[in-house]
């Protein structure tokens, strides 16, 4: 257990180092933040001076060491676009993305698991087939396209839901939430649905496939042979075994959903990390882009670590196995 943890932590460190290196490459080569710093009417001499002042003329290993050093101290520099400390802005934007991602995930789980179970247990029935077809649509529809169609339908045509932003946000001091006001909840509906659509379809297909596998195993056959009711077999035994890999994937998908929030946030002008990232790309605000990458990577690594540990707790048999059954 301890060595497992140590190994995973070691890997996490390596990942973070690689991501930091990539972030640095972007930081160093991608951007000339000078347009933002100096304005449009600067002279070449001024630009040279600023380059020197920012240390952009030092050798690359030295710059990397300096960058790594300041990142380790939690200093990601200053956003040239916003003129504010990068970490402050990231913390400010985090709640919007987390609320969107978690809501999207909850919707996906709440809809995807029952639908998957139903489709597995009622194979061949019309409703089950319809569900399966809908799930195919779900994984075939790019989320940005779906977002645009939702806006057109529910904002422009029907006027029911706001087309942009978080609506009324309540500031709790350390966290801003849109979940406490009607306006905030309304604003959340379409982005969360857009984000959840793909995940609903995926979780449903996954649950269905796993359930079909499990139902066929000897263990379930024995249970049936023991004379347990279908209901008991399906829900107490089969579903539980199905859920182990599903839990893992849901955990891992949370990372994916945060990454995909970039698209949803752009379409709905949701003021979270993803939109921040795209705006930073457009403005060549490299310090912000790099920090976003590092933050998201850290998030993934953390989620992955937790999922690994959970997995170990749920199913001790898997200790020592390198690739889990679902992969």
């Amino acid at each position, binding site marked *: 257990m301890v060595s497992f943890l140590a190994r995973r932590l070691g890997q996490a460190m390596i990942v973070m180092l690689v991501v930091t290196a990539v972030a640095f490459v972007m930081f160093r080569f991608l951007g000339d933040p000078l347009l933002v710093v100096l304005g449009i009417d600067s002279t070449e001499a001024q630009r040279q001076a600023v380059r020197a002042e920012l240390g952009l003329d030092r050798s690359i290993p030295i710059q990397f060491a300096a960058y790594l050093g300041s990142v380790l101290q939690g200093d990601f520099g200053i956003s040239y676009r916003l003129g504010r400390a990068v970490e402050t802005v990231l913390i400010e934007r985090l709640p919007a993305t987390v609320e969107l991602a978690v809501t999207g995930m909850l919707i996906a789980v709440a809809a995807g698991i029952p639908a998957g179970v139903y489709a597995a247990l009622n194979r061949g029935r019309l409703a089950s087939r319809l569900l399966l077809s809908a799930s*195919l649509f779900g994984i075939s529809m790019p989320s940005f396209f779906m977002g645009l169609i939702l806006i057109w339908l529910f904002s422009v045509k029907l006027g029911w839901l706001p087309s942009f932003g978080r609506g009324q946000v309540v500031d709790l001091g350390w966290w801003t939430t849109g979940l406490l006001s009607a306006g905030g909840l309304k604003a959340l509906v379409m982005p969360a649905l857009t984000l959840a659509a793909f995940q609903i379809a995926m979780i449903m297909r996954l649950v269905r496939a796993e359930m079909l596998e499990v139902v066929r195993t000897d263990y379930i056959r024995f249970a049936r042979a023991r004379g347990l009711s279908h209901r008991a077999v399906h829900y107490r035994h089969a579903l539980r075994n199905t859920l182990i890999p599903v839990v893992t994937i849901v955990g891992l998908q949370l990372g994916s959903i945060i990454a995909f929030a970039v698209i949803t946030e752009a379409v709905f002008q949701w003021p979270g990390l993803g939109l921040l990232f795209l705006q930073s790309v457009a403005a060549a605000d490299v310090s912000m882009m790099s920090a976003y990458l590092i933050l998201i990577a850290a998030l993934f690594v953390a989620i992955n670590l937790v999922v690994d540990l959970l997995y170990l707790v749920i199913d001790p048999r898997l200790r020592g196995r390198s690739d889990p059954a679902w992969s």
Partner: protein
Amino acid sequence: MTAGNHPVDHRAGQRPGWRVRLERSDLVYDFVRDPAAIAAAVILFAFAVAGLAPQIVAPYHAFDPNQFRLQDAFLAPIWLEGSDPRFLLGTDDQGRDMISAIIFGARVSLFVGLAGVLLAVLIGVAAGLIAGFVGGWVDAVTMRIADLQLTFPAILIAVMVDGISRAAFGQADRDRVAVFVLILAIGLSGWVQYARPVRGATLVERNREYVAAATMMGIPNWGIMLKHILPNVLTSVLVIGTIHLAVAVILEATLSFVGLGVPPTEPSLGTLIRIGNGYLFSGEWWIAIVPGGALVILVLSINLLGDFLRDALNPRLK
């Protein structure tokens, strides 16, 4: 969206050879009885033909500036008022025929998707074979990298590859290599799902007697691997690859839509939708919706076929 999470069973190591399975699974018999699969195959075939010979199939060469005129811009599809019989699905903001734009766009999308998947297959199969065959620390390192990679969503890897390419080529010149950047991003983000089953199959085969015998007879290792192991994993690779292709096409469209993918001068379906996006609420909705619809149909067909292949080649799931 790690495609490896698709509910595809690819513990290929325990399966009989692909020829046997192909026969046992009655692929053709199943296919003929599955109208959805037939429809999907027909649509994909049409896209493939159009993509291979767009100059012949498309009514106009969508990207030859001598073949479109600004005067023809914003013509509606034929069933709406304000249309022109020359352009069945209308024209875009530059006066390009939408049908032709979609054919040329789908060609770019499919090329990027296929090449990306192919790259992923190459990397994945090679890594899986080597890891499984050599074993030891090579195996350990490869599989650790695979583990780590799996936690990173494809879109994030694509964004990172994109960032590095911008750094390497300069923001302004990056457009020229954009297509290859996307292919690389798709390849690098998807190889793990192939490496795992291939490694599994290799591990099983490696310990068989014929491999030991072949080694003794002096047949080089790669010969053994290719000849005996590859056929066993082919079906898995095919099934995963089909679903991966759908994911890759969506990934390309998504990145192009937010401006991180193919430049507008070399339109893919994603770029066409991005261009049309500006006209969505100005009355000319078809500039976005028509290529969007084409994209959904394309991806849906790939997924349908992928589902069919998975079910047909994996009798346990039937």
